[in-house]
């Protein structure tokens, strides 16, 4: 790191957060952020310092048209079927490209079939591929792909990362069963570099998708995902 540049970057970050950095300089700085983690970290530190000043600002109730407008932009039924509003809905659809890679899925199933020690049910296991989310790249886990093989009776799941993931030792990966509505259910911590077996009773019931989040070591302290969701795989219905 260039020592002489760090104080300047820090001062720009402070003025960016405060709001005194304006015009072309502000736009340039803003454009630099996605590619410069050190700058983003400096901005985050100044946000932690300054933004709580806003806690004393009196709230002003928005008029009802604001929420109506938000709903219309994001959720209106008259949208074309293939038009996706933004990132979260896109993730549900990231399963589609993976469906095309049937050879991959079969190989994965074979590999997992050997690893499974729960009794093979008469029905084939349900395979779910979890693809990396947009958030994964921001925590250097852009290769966060997993395959989950769930026994058809919903009593066992084996999760395996496609590539071993390099993890910060202070963080852990936690697996969630995500219902269509309501809070995700934790299925516990999962390995970043090998298979994890999860034994439950009804893994498939009321589950629309599986997701992996990045949590502190030991898992979420709150029972809900607290870190970025790095990988999501939707169950075919």
């Amino acid at each position, binding site marked *: 790191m260039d*020592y002489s540049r*760090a104080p300047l970057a820090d*001062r720009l970050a*402070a*003025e960016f*957060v*405060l*709001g*005194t950095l*304006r015009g072309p300089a*502000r736009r340039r700085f803003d454009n630099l952020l996605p590619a410069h983690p050190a700058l983003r970290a400096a901005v*985050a530190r*100044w*946000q*932690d*310092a*300054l*933004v*709580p*000043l*806003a*806690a*004393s*600002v*009196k*709230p*002003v*109730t*928005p008029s009802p*048209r*604001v*929420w109506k*407008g*938000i709903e219309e932009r*994001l*959720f209106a039924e008259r949208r074309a079927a293939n038009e996706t509003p*933004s*990132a*979260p*809905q896109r*993730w*549900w659809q990231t399963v589609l490209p993976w469906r095309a890679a049937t050879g991959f899925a079969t190989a994965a199933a074979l590999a997992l079939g050997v690893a499974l020690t729960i009794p093979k049910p008469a029905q084939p296991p349900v395979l779910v591929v979890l693809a990396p*989310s*947009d*958030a994964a790249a*921001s*925590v250097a886990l852009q290769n966060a792909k997993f395959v989950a093989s769930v026994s058809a009776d919903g009593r066992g799941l084996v999760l395996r990362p496609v590539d071993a993931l390099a993890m910060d030792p202070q963080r852990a990966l936690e697996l969630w069963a*995500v219902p269509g*509505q*309501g809070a995700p259910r934790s299925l516990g911590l999962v390995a970043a570099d090998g298979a994890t077996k999860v034994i439950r009773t009804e893994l498939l019931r009321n589950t629309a*998708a599986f997701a992996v*989040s990045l949590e*502190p070591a030991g898992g979420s302290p*709150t029972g*809900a*995902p*607290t*870190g*970025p*969701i790095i990988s999501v795989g939707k169950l075919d219905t």
Partner: protein
Amino acid sequence: MATSASSSAQRADALGALLARVSLGDRAAFATLYQQTAAHLLGVILRINTDRGQAEDLLQEIFVKIWGAAGSFDAQRAQPMTWLTSIARHRAIDSLRRRQTEPQWVTARASLDDGEDDDVLDQMPSEAAGPMELLGQAVQARAVGVCMKGLSGEQQQTLALAFYQGLSHSEVADQLRQPLGTVKSWVRRGLLSLRACLERAGAIDAVGV
């Protein structure tokens, strides 16, 4: 004191959990997040862009952005309300590009000379709890409020005008009828002193540069 800090931390956790569910496409969680935070964010935006119509349009854009960006929120790295408010302030400041061509925004405000600088300073977080706990920011807000009071009057004035009203250096200089260089120096030193105070208080992490 301990009670309000822990209930504030619980609020922060609850907001973080909502953001995680939003990132998974949970519309009900998104509606709840809006109910709990939109009024606060509109208040913040209105102090920067005083046009109600523009401010409400900005609020709409901000929540559309939150829907898409919720997946990048990391509760280990940031406070939910800081994250949300930063998005709102950033958009509001960007909307001010147009303001330079509309001189009407300049209204009579307190200057350093007439002894009414308390107006702006009163706006800073005080010891009173309530709203700051609701937003999960009681501890951080009290810390920055205390640290601000440790700055010189001029530094507090300039930082408050820049932060709350989104004034640029030259706008602050016009407002206070002070030279531009003087204002820049107050801002720069004020920021450094503020952060040193927060680091000493353990409110933010010290950084080895």
